[in-house]
C-alpha cells in the first residue's frame, strides 16, 4: 500500500465538525469534473490511490479514469462499500428482505439468480453477501482495486451483533473474485482485530481513526498504542487531524511515530492543503524507526 491515500469525504458533504462547511463542499463538488480536478491535484502531488465509497457519483469518476487510463497508468482505487444510506433507506421502505432483493442484480445472470434466490430462501449469508459485494463492485470494472474495504457502518454493526462469519465471507470473496486484499474500516479497532483473528482473517488491513486526542477511538488512545506495538496487523490511519481539531504538523508527527502504520488517508479540497499534508506525511514517515 502507498503511504498516502486520498479520501473522498470532502466530495460528499461529510464533515464531522460543521454542517455549513459540508454544504459548501457539496456545492463545490456537485459537478464531477470538480472532483476530478482535485484528484488531479493529488495525483500531481504524488498520491496515486483513491480510497472512495461506492456512492453512485463515484461511478462517474470511474468512467473518467477508464476513459483516460493512459494518463494515469499507475492509478488505484480502494473501494469502501457499501454507501450505507441507500441501504438504510431501502430497509425503512421495503423491510429487510425487500431491501436485499432490491439490491441484488436483476440482469438475468444465472449465477445471480441461483445464488441470490436460494440464499435468501435458505438464509445463507455467503450467497447474499457476495452478491451485494458484486453489485457494489460493478462500477470499478476494468480499474485496479488491489484493496477492497468494508465500511465501518457495516463492520461495526456486524461486530456488535457478533456476526463474525460475515467478515470471513467478505475476505474470501474479495480475495477469490477480485484478487484483492480485504480491508475493514472500524471505530472499534481493538475489538475488531480480536474477532478477525478468531475467524482466521490473518494480518488484516484495518483502517481506523488514529489521532492524538482519541476522537472515535473506542478503547482509548492507550489501548490503541498498545495494540499497535504488540499485535500483528496492517493499520491504516484515518481522521488523523480529528476533523481539524489538531494542527496538521502536530497531528501527522504523532501518527507517523506510531509503530506499524502503513498508510494515512486524508481528504482535502485545495492544492495547498493537499501538498502540505502530503509533504508532512513524507517528512515524518521518512524518519520512522521501523
Amino acid at each position, binding site marked *: 500500500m502507498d503511504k498516502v491515500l486520498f479520501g473522498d469525504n470532502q466530495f460528499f458533504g461529510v464533515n464531522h*465538525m460543521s*454542517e455549513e462547511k*459540508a454544504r459548501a463542499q457539496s456545492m463545490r463538488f456537485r459537478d464531477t469534473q470538480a472532483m476530478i480536478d482535485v484528484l488531479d491535484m493529488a495525483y500531481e502531488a504524488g498520491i496515486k490511490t483513491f480510497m472512495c465509497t461506492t456512492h453512485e457519483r463515484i461511478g462517474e469518476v470511474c468512467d473518467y479514469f477508464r476513459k483516460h487510463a493512459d494518463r494515469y497508468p499507475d492509478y488505484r482505487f480502494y473501494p469502501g462499500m457499501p454507501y450505507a444510506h441507500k441501504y438504510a433507506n431501502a430497509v425503512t*421502505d421495503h423491510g429487510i*428482505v425487500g431491501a436485499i432483493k432490491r439490491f441484488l442484480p436483476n440482469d438475468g445472470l444465472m449465477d445471480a439468480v441461483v445464488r441470490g434466490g436460494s440464499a435468501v430462501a435458505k438464509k445463507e449469508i455467503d450467497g447474499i453477501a457476495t452478491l451485494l459485494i458484486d453489485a457494489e463492485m460493478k462500477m470499478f470494472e476494468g480499474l485496479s482495486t488491489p484493496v477492497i474495504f468494508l465500511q465501518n457502518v457495516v463492520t*461495526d454493526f*456486524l461486530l*456488535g451483533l457478533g456476526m463474525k462469519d460475515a467478515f470471513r465471507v467478505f475476505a474470501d470473496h474479495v480475495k477469490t473474485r477480485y484478487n484483492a486484499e480485504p480491508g475493514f474500516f472500524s471505530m472499534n479497532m481493538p475489538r475488531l482485530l480480536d474477532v478477525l483473528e478468531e475467524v482466521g482473517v490473518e494480518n488484516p488491513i484495518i483502517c481506523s481513526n488514529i489521532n492524538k486526542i482519541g476522537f472515535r477511538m473506542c478503547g482509548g488512545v492507550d489501548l490503541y498504542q498498545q495494540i499497535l506495538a504488540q499485535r500483528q496487523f496492517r493499520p491504516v490511519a484515518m481522521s488523523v487531524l480529528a476533523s481539524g481539531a489538531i494542527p496538521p504538523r502536530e497531528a501527522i508527527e504523532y501518527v507517523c511515530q506510531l509503530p506499524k502504520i502503513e498508510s494515512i488517508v486524508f481528504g482535502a479540497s485545495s492544492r495547498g492543503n493537499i501538498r502540505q499534508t502530503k509533504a508532512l506525511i513524507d517528512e515524518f514517515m521518512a524518519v520512522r524507526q521501523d
Partner: protein
Amino acid sequence: MGLSHQSIINMQPDVQLVAVCDSTRFVLDMLEKYTGVRVYNNLSKMLQSEDLDAVIIATPSKFHGPMVRECLEHNLHVFCEKPYCLDVTEGERLAELAKQKGLVNQVGYHYRFVGAFQEVKRLLDIGAIGDVAHIKAEAYGPVVLRPSGSSWRNQRSEGGGCLYDYAAHPLNLVNWYFGMPESVGGTVMNKIFSADSEDEIYATLRFGSGLSGQLSVNWSDESYRRMTTKISISGTRGRIYADRQECQVYLRDGGNLPDGYLSGWNVRYTTELTPEVWAYVRGEEYSAQLDYFVQRIKAKEMDNINSFTSALQTDRLMRMLIDDSEREPIAASGDYQPLAKGNSSWWQRLTNAS
C-alpha cells in the same frame, strides 16, 4: 432500529444479551444461525421463558404502551424507543407503575446525549445568554421523498408520521431546555408525499414570561443528507445555535462570560464536547444513552435523564399539536372583523396614533 440497539448493547461490557424478540422470521433465523442468540417471535413467551433484568423496546410506536406494561409487570427495567406512548393517559399510568416498582425507565431521546445539545443546556442553566426570548427548533431530512407504499412509519394511526418520528426530537429538546409550553397555536401539518400522515409540521409554542418558540420540521427534504436537528435560541445577552456537530454562541460584551468563552462569536465542536464511548456503531450518543441506562440500573437510580415522566411531556405536547392542527383557523373572508379596540394590533395602534 432494533438491530442497531442489539449491536450496541451486545458490546456493552456489563450486559449479557440473552434473547431477541421480533416478528420477522427471516431476521430471527439469521440472528439465531450467525450470532447464537436465543430468538422469540412472541414477547410473552420470551418473558416467561427467560430470566431477564432489563429490556429494550424498539418496535413500531403503537406497541410501546402494551409492551412497556407487560415488561414492567414482569419487573424489568425498561428502555423504550421514542415516542414513548401514543396514549397519554396510559403513558401516565405506566410512568407511575415504573415508579411504584422502583424500575429504571428511559426513552430513546438520544439528542440529550449529544455534546453540542448538552452544552446548550449547560449555557442556559448558567444564564449565559440572559433572559431567553425565543427558541427555534428544527429538523429536516430525506425520509419520504415520493409517494410510496405504506409502512407503519408513515401512518399516524400506527404511531408513525413526521410528527412522531421527526418532530418528537426537536420538541423533546425544547422540553428539556424550557419545560412545557403554556399553549400552542398556528399548527400546520401538511402532506407532501405521504397518504396517511403529515410530512411537514410548523407550529408556534408560547411559554409564559415572553418566551416563544417555533417549530419547523420536514422529513421530505432531500437537500439534507441525513436527519439534521437544529436549535437556535436568542436572549437578552446573546444567541446560541446548535446542531449535532457544533454549538455556536454569540455573547454580548460585559456581564459574566462562561469559562472559556469570549464576547462575540464562539464555537465548540463535537470533537471536543463528546465523551468517549465503549463501542461505536452509529454515533456516540446511541452508545452513550444505552450505557447510561445500564449504569442507572447498576446504581439503582431512578431519577434519570429521559425518564418516562420526562418523555410524557413530549407525548403531551405532540397531542396538543395534533389537536391544534385540527382546529379551524381564522379565515380570510369578507366577513372578517378585526378584534375590538383595546385589543387592536400593533399596526392599528400605530395608524391610530398618527
